[in-house]
C-alpha cells in the first residue's frame, strides 16, 4: 500500500490523496452505516484523466478500487476496501453544459441530482429522477445505482434519462457510451451496475419540460386495505399518476413526531397521489380520483407549491423520522407486483407479531416498491437478530410473489446474499460474463452485488477449495 500511495501522490495534486487515519475514518461507510471499513487510501481526483490514471495504477498494483459519490447509498455499494483505493468524485462538480435546444445537460459525476434541476428550473425544465436524497446524492451515484424516486412510476429511472456516459473502464480506459451509437447497449448495462463495471466521469442527462399542471392529493383512509383498494382502482381506471405513495399508521406517527406534518388524525393509512401533465388532463383525472377515493375520510388538495411541500414533508422525512419512535431500524427496499400488495402487507403484519418486532410501512404503492422500516431497540439483547430475521423474511416474501429484493437502493454489500434466492446459479454466472468482459481482474468494487463471484476464466461448477478471491482478500464468502 505504501508504494501505491507514493505512486498516487506522484500522479495527483498533493491535497487529492488522503492517508490521515482520522480523515480516512470519515469515509468508512455510506448511508448503510452498519457495514464499515476504513479505506486503504482515499483519492479526490478533479478530472476524468486523473480517475483513469488512478484506475490504471490500481491495475498495475492489482489493488481493488471503489467509487464513491456523496455516500448516500443505502446498500453499502460504496463500502470501502481496507486493502483498496476509494475514489471520491466530490471534486468533480461542474455542470459542463446545459443545452435546452437539445433538452440535455452534460455534468460531472459529483454534481448533485437536485443541482441539475436547479440549473434549469427557471427556464421550465427539470431532471426527472428524484431519489429522496436528491439534495445531496450525486448523479454519478445515481448512474451506479440506477436510482429512481417517487416519480419514477410515470417517468422511469436514471437509465431512461441518461443519454451518454464517459466512463473509466476497470482497465483505466476512457470510453464514451452513447445511446446514439450503434452496437450493444453497453450504456444500459453500465447504468445500475453499482460501480462494478467502471466509473462514470461525465454524464449527459435528458431534461424534461415541466408539466403545465400539478395536483397533489392527500387521502386519509381508516385502514391500509382501503388505501390499497384505492391504488388498484386508480391503476384500473387507466390513470398513470406521477406518484402514488402510501404510509401506514406507524409511519405516520413517526413523521408526526419528527416534522409535525399534520396528517389527518386517526388515519390507518394515507395516500399521496400526484397528478401532472396538461391542465385539461390533470383536471379530468382529478375528478376521477375524487370518485375513486370516496372511501377516504379526508381528502386534501394542494393548491400551491407550499401546500404541496407540506403534503410531501411527512413522506420525505419518513426514514429519518422513525428515529423518533425507535432507537434503531433496518430499511428494506423489496418490490412486489402491485396486485400482491394486500397479501404481502398482511404477511408482514403476521411476521411483525410473530417476532415481536414493529414494522412501519412506507411505500411507492404505484409500483409495488416497499420500504418497510423494521424497528428495534439495539439495547435489547436479541432484538437486532429478530429484526434481521423479519427483514430477511420480508425479502423472501417479495421473491415468493415474483418481485425483487431491491427496487432502487441497489444490492451492494447488503443484499448480495439474497441474490441466489432471486436468481439461479446460471443467471448469476451469465451476469458474471458481463463483469468479466469489463473487469477481467475483478478490481472494480469487488464483493458487491454478487455473492462470491466466479473468477473470469474459471469453468462453472468445478470450483474446489477456498475461492481465490476469498483467499486473496478480494471477496468475502457470503
Amino acid at each position, binding site marked *: 500500500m505504501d508504494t501505491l500511495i507514493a505512486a498516487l501522490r506522484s500522479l495527483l495534486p498533493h491535497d487529492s490523496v488522503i492517508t490521515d487515519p482520522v480523515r480516512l475514518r470519515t469515509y468508512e461507510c455510506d448511508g448503510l452505516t452498519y457495514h464499515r471499513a476504513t479505506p486503504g487510501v482515499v483519492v479526490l481526483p478533479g478530472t476524468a484523466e486523473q480517475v483513469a490514471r488512478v484506475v490504471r495504477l490500481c491495475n498495475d498494483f492489482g489493488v481493488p478500487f471503489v467509487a464513491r459519490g456523496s455516500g448516500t447509498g443505502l446498500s453499502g455499494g460504496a463500502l470501502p476496501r481496507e486493502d483498496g483505493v476509494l475514489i471520491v468524485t466530490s471534486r468533480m462538480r461542474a455542470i459542463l453544459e446545459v443545452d435546452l435546444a437539445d433538452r440535455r445537460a452534460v455534468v460531472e459525476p459529483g454534481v448533485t441530482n437536485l443541482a441539475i434541476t436547479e440549473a434549469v428550473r427557471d427556464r421550465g425544465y427539470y431532471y426527472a429522477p428524484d431519489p429522496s436524497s436528491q439534495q445531496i446524492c450525486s448523479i454519478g451515484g445515481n448512474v451506479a445505482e440506477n436510482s*429512481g424516486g417517487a416519480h419514477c412510476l410515470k417517468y422511469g429511472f436514471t437509465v431512461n434519462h441518461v443519454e451518454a456516459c464517459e466512463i473509466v473502464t476497470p482497465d483505466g480506459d476512457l470510453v464514451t457510451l452513447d445511446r446514439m451509437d450503434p*452496437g*450493444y447497449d453497453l450504456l444500459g448495462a453500465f447504468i445500475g451496475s453499482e460501480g462494478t463495471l467502471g466509473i462514470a466521469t461525465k454524464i449527459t442527462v435528458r431534461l424534461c419540460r415541466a408539466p403545465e399542471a400539478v395536483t397533489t392529493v392527500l387521502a386519509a383512509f381508516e385502514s391500509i386495505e382501503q388505501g390499497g383498494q384505492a391504488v388498484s382502482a386508480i391503476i384500473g381506471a387507466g390513470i398513470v399518476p406521477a406518484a402514488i405513495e402510501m404510509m401506514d399508521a406507524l409511519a405516520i406517527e413517526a413523521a408526526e413526531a419528527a416534522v409535525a406534518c399534520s396528517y389527518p388524525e386517526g388515519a390507518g393509512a394515507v395516500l399521496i397521489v400526484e397528478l401532472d401533465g396538461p391542465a385539461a*388532463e390533470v383536471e379530468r383525472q382529478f375528478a376521477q380520483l375524487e370518485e375513486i377515493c370516496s372511501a377516504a375520510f379526508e381528502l386534501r388538495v394542494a393548491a400551491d407549491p407550499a401546500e404541496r411541500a407540506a403534503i410531501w414533508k411527512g413522506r420525505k422525512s419518513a426514514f429519518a423520522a422513525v428515529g423518533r419512535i425507535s432507537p434503531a431500524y433496518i430499511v428494506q427496499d423489496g418490490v412486489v407486483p402491485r396486485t400482491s400488495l394486500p397479501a404481502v402487507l398482511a404477511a408482514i403484519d403476521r411476521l411483525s407479531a410473530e417476532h415481536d418486532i414493529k414494522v412501519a410501512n412506507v411505500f*411507492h404503492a404505484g409500483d409495488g416498491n416497499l420500504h418497510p422500516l423494521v424497528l428495534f431497540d439495539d439495547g435489547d439483547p436479541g432484538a437486532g437478530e429478530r429484526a434481521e430475521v423479519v427483514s430477511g423474511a420480508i425479502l423472501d416474501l417479495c421473491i415468493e410473489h415474483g*418481485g425483487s429484493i*431491491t427496487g432502487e437502493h441497489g444490492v451492494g454489500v447488503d443484499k448480495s446474499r439474497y441474490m441466489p434466492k*432471486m436468481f439461479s446459479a446460471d443467471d448469476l454466472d451469465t451476469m458474471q460474463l458481463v463483469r468479466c*468482459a469489463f473487469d477481467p481482474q475483478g478490481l472494480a468494487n469487488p464483493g458487491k452485488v454478487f455473492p462470491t463471484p466466479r473468477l473470469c476464466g474459471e469453468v462453472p461448477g468445478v470450483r474446489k477449495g477456498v475461492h481465490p478471491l476469498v483467499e486473496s482478500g478480494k471477496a468475502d464468502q457470503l
Partner: protein
Amino acid sequence: MVTGGLEGAGVFGEVTTRQAGDDDAVCGVRPRWVALPETVEEIAAVLRACAERDLAVVPAGGGTKLHWAPPPERCDVLLDLCCMNEVLEHAAGDLVVRAQAGVTIAALSAALAGEGQELALDVPFGEDATVGGTLAAPLPGPRAFRYGTARDLLIGITVVLPDGTVARSGGKVVKNVAGYDLGKLFTGSYGTLGVIAEATFRLHPMPPERRWVVAELGGARVPAVAAALAASQAEPSAVEVDRPDPAGPLTLAALVEGTAAQTRGETLRELIGPAEVSGEPPSWWGQVFGDDVLVEVRFPASGTAAVLDAAAGCGLSLRGSPVAGRVLLEPGRELDEDELAATVSGLREKVEAAGGRVSVLAAPCQGVDRWGHVSGLPLMRRVKERFDPGRRMSPGRFVGGI
C-alpha cells in the same frame, strides 16, 4: 423429430427440425436445417447440440428484418421461433405482460387490447414481426419520444446462451435494480449473443383519445416547429415528418394521446400554423418505406436542419422524428454498390458534423461502411467473446464484424 429429409435426424433430439430450402437463406446464406423449438428447454437443447458440433446459428422470428445486417459468415441452423407463440401471463392489474419470443406483435396487441392496455411501441410489420425480433433488431417508432424504445419498456428477459445455458434477468416488476440488466444487452444485439426466448414488458393503459395534427410544412420551418412542439406543455406523444421526394413537400404530424386530446391538439396547431386535427393518423404514420436499403440517422435536436439538408442533398427520402432525433432514409431509386457507398459516406460526413450518427440498417451489398466509428467497440468485442467464444451466433452480422 425430423421432417422433409433425414440428414439431421437425431442431431436435435426431439426438437422438430426440417431440411432448409432456398427460402430459408439468410442474405443468401442457406442453412442446413431449420429447427422449430417449442419451449425454452428445446431452444437450449438445440443450442447445446450446435455447440457440440460447432454449428453456427441464426435465430429468426417473423423474418421481417432478417435481411437487415450483413450476411452471416456461416449459418448451419436457422432457429425459427415461430412455435414459441404463447402469451404466458398478462397481469393487467400490474400493467405487465410476459410472452414467448415468437408471439407476433399483432397477437400480443390483440391480447392486451382486451384489457384496454398496450405495449407502447409502434412496431413496423407488426402482423409478422415478433417479440423476439422486435427486441433483437429494434426500430424506434413515433412514440419513442414519449415512452422510450424497446429497451425502456422491457423489464425482464429469458435468454439462451450459445452453450445452452438458460439465463434470466430482471423480473416482472417494473422497479427492480437487482443484478445486471441482460435485457439491455440483448436488446439490439442482432442475434449475436444468444437467443431471446421470453420477454416481460411494462404496459400502458390504452389512451382514451388520440388526435393527430397534420400539416404541410416548408423544410426550413421544421427545426423551429419541432422545438416548439417538443417544449409544449400540451405534451405530444410523437412528432413525425415525412418527405418521400427529397426535393418535394414535407408533411409534419404530431400525436396527442390521453384525455382532452382535441383541446391539446388545437394548442399544438397554434404552434404549427394551418393544420388539420384528425382522429386518424396519416397513411405513412409508423410505417417503414421499402427496406432493401434503409439508413437510420440519430441526432441531437439541434442537428435537425443539418440532417434534413443532408438527406435532401444525398437524394434520400426521409421519415421520422425531429423531436426524438431519429429518422429513416431510403434512396428513391436503385443505387449500385459504389453509388450507395458514396452516398452513405457523404451523408455520414454531414450528419456527424452536426453531432449525429448514421447506421445502414439494410443494404443488399458488402462494400458499405454500415456503422462508421463505434466508440465502445473494443468493449463490445470483449462482451461477444465472453458470451459467444466460438463465434457461432449470427457471426459477422453486427458492428465491427461481431
